[in-house]
């Protein structure tokens, strides 16, 4: 496995991990949780944007196409 030599103590861990307090200050779990929360907020903000019409239109078209194909078949 290609471990980052500068960061040997940073074992893989889930977002809410509370171990690893011996890491350098800027990578303590508390700070990383803050970053994790900001990332989630950033992502959620984008996901909250209304769905562009082009997609609902596209799916409507595809749906209509396939049901008219079905009738032909």
């Amino acid at each position, binding site marked *: 496995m290609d471990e980052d030599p500068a960061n040997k103590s940073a074992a893989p861990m889930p977002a809410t991990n509370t171990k690893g307090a011996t890491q350098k200050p800027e990578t303590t779990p508390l700070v990383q949780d803050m970053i994790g929360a900001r990332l989630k907020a*950033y992502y959620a903000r984008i996901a909250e944007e209304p769905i562009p019409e082009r*997609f609902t239109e596209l799916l409507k078209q595809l749906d209509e196409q396939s049901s008219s194909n079905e009738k032909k078949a």
Partner: protein
Amino acid sequence: MSMPEGTDPPKRDLDDFPGLLVACIPGLRAFGITLTSNAERADDLVQETLLKAWKSQKSFERGTNLRAWLFTILRNEFYTQLRKRKREVEDADGVYSNSLSVPGGQESHLDMQDMRLALAKLPHDQREAIILVGASGFSYEEAAEICMVAVGTVKSRVSRARTRLTELLMPPDKSNVRQGNA
């Protein structure tokens, strides 16, 4: 959603499929935007994803994870396009970061901007790992399947991404509070 029948999917499932896809669009867009730092390219990825998913909907096993399936398609499409673009122009990460419009107030806008720039600085493999696990809500196992790597690889990528994001967003030098001027 419990119609495990052979041959042609029943009409009800066909009716269902668009609705299921629509429900996944917000997450797909967010994934695309975080991958590309570009709303337009992200929406093209989403469009491709929807088209491909539609065409191969019969191969999708009902009852399995549709969201993970769609994310896998979008990710594959992203790398296909990336390889094409790389051949055309050597794009530096973040070149497109100004073309993404994000709604919101001043302060949160800055916050969003910082996160976007920081994500754009991560290597692709780390970026997708931290987004899938840390924002999209996939398990390590699901992310490993989406990225087609071992679970351990995802874990180490997420870990490194987290460390790198922290360095980028919370520089040890606290006196330097200017942000977003990368």
